[in-house]
């Protein structure tokens, strides 16, 4: 009797990030899956922590939302208390200490990256608290496909355009080669002066190649009326809700 509770996850994900000269590009696809069903086609996996620190998440969707919400709150408090911009390493430390406490039971796999006064940084933080620093990396089920593109084409000190196109190509590879990633991609380009958010970008292979053949409309009277009952009411008060 009964049935399993539906579990909304975005374990199947492709998230990619790469540093370039003076900045950082991060990106994620937008598919959230529950089992083999797509639960959300436009899920936001690039989370803002501060003005110049972002986190991309793979793992359990709810855990990711809560962890990044907590991080952004704590970092904001820190910024207000110190009067300075938070550093990426701080965000990372907070994340790993939180996740380590829960011994992997919080299923959040994060790429934390951003630009602070010490330059651009990119870190990976896994659910059990392991962290690593990278110049470029990918995470999630589509990471195998994505990392091939990164390994082939990454060069140190790329221009912003090069880095952006690299991350986008890596994401597209992940979305193409992995069932659990797809639909559309979001990018964030972080520089000391400005942070630009791009998306959703829909690659060609994610578009529906052909529209439906038929139209599915039900004519009036399609449903059998078993019983009718009319309710009479008086208008006591009315208000304008058009604006």
């Amino acid at each position, binding site marked *: 009797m009964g*049935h399993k509770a539906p579990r909304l996850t975005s374990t199947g994900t492709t998230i990619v990030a790469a540093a370039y000269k003076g900045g950082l590009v991060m990106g994620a696809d937008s598919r959230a899956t529950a089992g083999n069903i797509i639960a959300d086609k436009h899920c936001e996996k690039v989370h803002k922590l501060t003005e110049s620190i972002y986190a991309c998440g793979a793992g359990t969707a709810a855990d990711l939302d809560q962890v990044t919400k907590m991080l952004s709150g704590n970092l904001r408090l820190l910024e207000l208390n110190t009067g300075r911009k938070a550093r990426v390493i701080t965000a990372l430390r907070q994340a790993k200490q939180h996740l380590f406490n829960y011994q992997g039971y919080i299923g959040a796999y994060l790429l934390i990256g951003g630009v602070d006064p010490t330059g651009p940084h990119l870190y990976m933080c896994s659910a059990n608290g392991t962290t690593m620093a990278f110049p470029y990396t990918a995470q999630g089920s589509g990471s195998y496909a994505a990392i091939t593109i990164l390994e082939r084409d990454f060069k140190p000190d790329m221009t912003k355009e090069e880095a952006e196109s690299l991350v986008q190509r890596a994401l597209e590879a992940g979305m193409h080669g992995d069932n659990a990633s797809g639909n559309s991609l979001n990018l964030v380009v972080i520089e000391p002066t400005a942070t630009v958010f791009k998306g959703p970008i829909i690659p060609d292979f994610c578009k529906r190649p052909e529209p439906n053949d038929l139209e599915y409309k039900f004519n009036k009277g399609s449903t059998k009326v078993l*019983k009718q*009952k009319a*309710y009479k009411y008086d208008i006591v008060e009315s208000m304008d809700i058009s604006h």
Partner: protein
Amino acid sequence: MFGCTFDDQDDEERALESCKQSFMFEPRHSDFVFPSLPLGIDSKSFVSQHFGKDAKNMQFRKGTTTLAFVYEPATENDKGGIIIAVDSRASSGEYISSKSVMKILDIGDRMVATMAGGAADCQFWTRTVAKYCTLYELREKSQITVSAASKYFANVLYGYRGKGLSVGSMVAGYDKRGPQIFKVDSDGDRCQLRVCSVGSGSLNAYGILDNHYKPKMTDDEARKLGLRAIMHATFRDSGSGGVCNLCHITPTEKIRLPPFDVSKLYYEFAEELGKDIVYTPRDD
């Protein structure tokens, strides 16, 4: 076929001889065995591991309410005999994989078997029993009794006991001893009953049957009772549903009635009671 000749006559005669050898005398055990798993792996646990309740994809079709009862005619115009009524749902886990299964399977002209438990098991073994019965009648030149057919069925199932078969069948029919129902299941159990129900919705069906069954009924009453019992079972049991297939075996013939949609049956029933089937919100 080595040494094959073009002498057709000879070939045909030989074929006839071998046919007689294998069918016109007491049947011998065939040397067919089901392919099995590698040594040391129990097929029951293996199958339930991959195709059982927790399996994600491939589950066997299951779930049923079947019932049958014997009654005597109340008036001279009635025929009496056996009513067999079944639902038509097959579910694979929580998914309804079919809503139009015929669960009354023929065994000869005046005998049927119902299907409860594993759908494939029932279909396959009922066919085996049907073959046995046909060969028996050809060989002995007399009709096989329901008792004998059901005993063969039970013996076959007992031979596979513990292997994980799931069969709950009622063999019902009219023979020289009158109308008879035998309940046979995959544990090897076989018992004769006059009122019988098998399957996940059997308790609900029994509730109606025990309440309204009389040894003497008119044909109309009896058919209605069968429909009613199935309707109530499908109403309360998630493993049963679809349409109600009904079969009436009289002393002279086997009548298969057209399928009845159970939800329509429920509307009829509700109308009879004067019950409102529509949800009405509270009027406040």
